[in-house]
């Protein structure tokens, strides 16, 4: 991976860490507190721990792990819907691997599979189209989750199915949009933070320009970062520099992939298929206005919720509350390992909260990578 290895170079990393320290330490000194940086994206949380960057970055910088894991925030109700559909005898239920372990109110998809439901892990929604063609007497359902990065692929696959007259493929969509989620976070004003490391792959779709309200309205700088150590540190350095220089801008430190306007075809696929601005309740976040989408009226035939017609998911059963700690972690008030449930009642095998659910969750990252 020619393009990757140069962005993993360790001498480069050493240099960058030194640069960051040179800027951050005096600034934190001046402010009398560490700089509070939110890495929005679970992928960055993961990279920080996987590459051991947490131990390299000066103490003058503190990370607040953002809400950027679409699996962690998936509401219990979404899993219950998925299980209900997957257990229908004529359904082949397909999904990315990520949500399979997430507990529903009764069971996870993995448990449903163990009990006999036909659940298959796919790498791409394109493969669900092929599966539907090869199984004309089955209903194929694809569990569509993910941020703005994944939505275009789902939308495009749905449009392809429509074009090809495939009538046995449906999508169960629980997408979450990044910008409304960030805006809600900032609007809540509960979080003390100085700036953002912006998510590289969401940005590839929505474009760097999309973040302007963050800088304009909330006066927070944001630098878009790739996922290699050198990428991340470069963005962090640029962010710290902005703070030191009192600037507040949207910068793009991942320009080889991210453009200002983003991927226009992808944006168009989204707006063709989905109605925008749906309020939605997320695990650990609560109701976030306008944070989700739904399939447009004209594509209702492809909405898997139709298969839930007569199923009333009992309200009481979905009333499983997150412990309050998760929210505190999301707001930067607690580190994962400061949560009293962490590694005790709450483990990846038996997660009590959203952030332990997926490998991308901040608590799971602490669990696997930080040790006792």
């Amino acid at each position, binding site marked *: 991976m020619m393009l990757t290895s140069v962005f993993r170079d360790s001498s480069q990393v050493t240099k960058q860490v030194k640069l960051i320290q040179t800027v951050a330490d005096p600034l934190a000194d001046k402010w009398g507190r560490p700089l509070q940086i939110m890495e929005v994206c679970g992928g960055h949380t993961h990279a920080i721990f996987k590459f051991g960057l947490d131990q390299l970055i000066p103490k003058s910088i503190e990370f607040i792990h953002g809400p950027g894991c679409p699996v962690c925030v998936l509401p219990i109700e979404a899993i219950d819907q998925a299980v209900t559909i997957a257990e229908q005898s004529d359904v082949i239920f397909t999904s990315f691997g990520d949500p399979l372990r997430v507990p529903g109110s009764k069971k996870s998809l993995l448990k449903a599979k163990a009990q006999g439901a036909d659940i298959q892990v796919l790498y791409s929604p394109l*493969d669900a189209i092929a599966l539907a063609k090869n199984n004309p007497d089955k209903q194929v359902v694809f569990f569509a989750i993910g941020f703005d990065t994944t939505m275009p692929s789902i939308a495009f696959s749905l449009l392809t199915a429509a074009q090809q007259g495939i009538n046995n493929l449906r999508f169960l969509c629980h997408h979450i949009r990044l910008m409304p989620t960030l805006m809600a976070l900032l609007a809540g004003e509960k979080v003390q933070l100085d700036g953002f490391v912006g998510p590289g792959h969401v940005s590839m779709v929505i474009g760097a320009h999309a973040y302007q309200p963050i800088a304009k309205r909330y006066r927070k700088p944001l630098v878009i970062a790739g996922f290699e150590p050198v990428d991340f540190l470069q963005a962090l350095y640029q962010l710290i520099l902005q703070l030191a220089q009192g600037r507040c801008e949207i910068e793009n430190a991942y320009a080889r*992939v991210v453009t200002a306007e983003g991927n226009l075809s992808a944006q168009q696929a989204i707006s063709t298929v989905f109605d925008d601005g749906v309020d939605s309740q997320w695990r650990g976040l609560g109701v976030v206005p306008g944070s989700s989408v739904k399939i447009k009226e004209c594509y209702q035939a492809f909405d898997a919720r139709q298969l839930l017609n007569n199923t009333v998911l009992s309200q009481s059963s979905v009333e499983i509350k997150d412990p309050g700690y998760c929210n505190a972690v999301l707001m930067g008030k607690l580190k994962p390992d400061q949560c009293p449930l962490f590694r005790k009642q709450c483990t990846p095998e038996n997660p009590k909260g959203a952030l332990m659910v997926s490998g991308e969750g901040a608590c799971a990252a602490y669990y696997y990578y930080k040790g006792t």
Partner: protein
Amino acid sequence: MCLGIPAKIIAITDLANSLALAETAGVQRQVSVAMLTLKGKTIESLVGEWVLLHVGFAMALINQEEADRALDLLAQMDPDSQ
């Protein structure tokens, strides 16, 4: 979130449906290039280009000039001169 991986387009497999074969370090898969912004280029001309893949779709052309620029920038930075 959103695992993405650079891959090189090595062949167009289905022009009508914008499907191509992409390769990363000896691992290949058929992907859709339908959502790439081609800026006047033909799909055939993608062969040899690097793209960023997510869930089987090429979501961005990787801009080699920007990559080089970033690397140049890094090379110029010197913590000891700051």
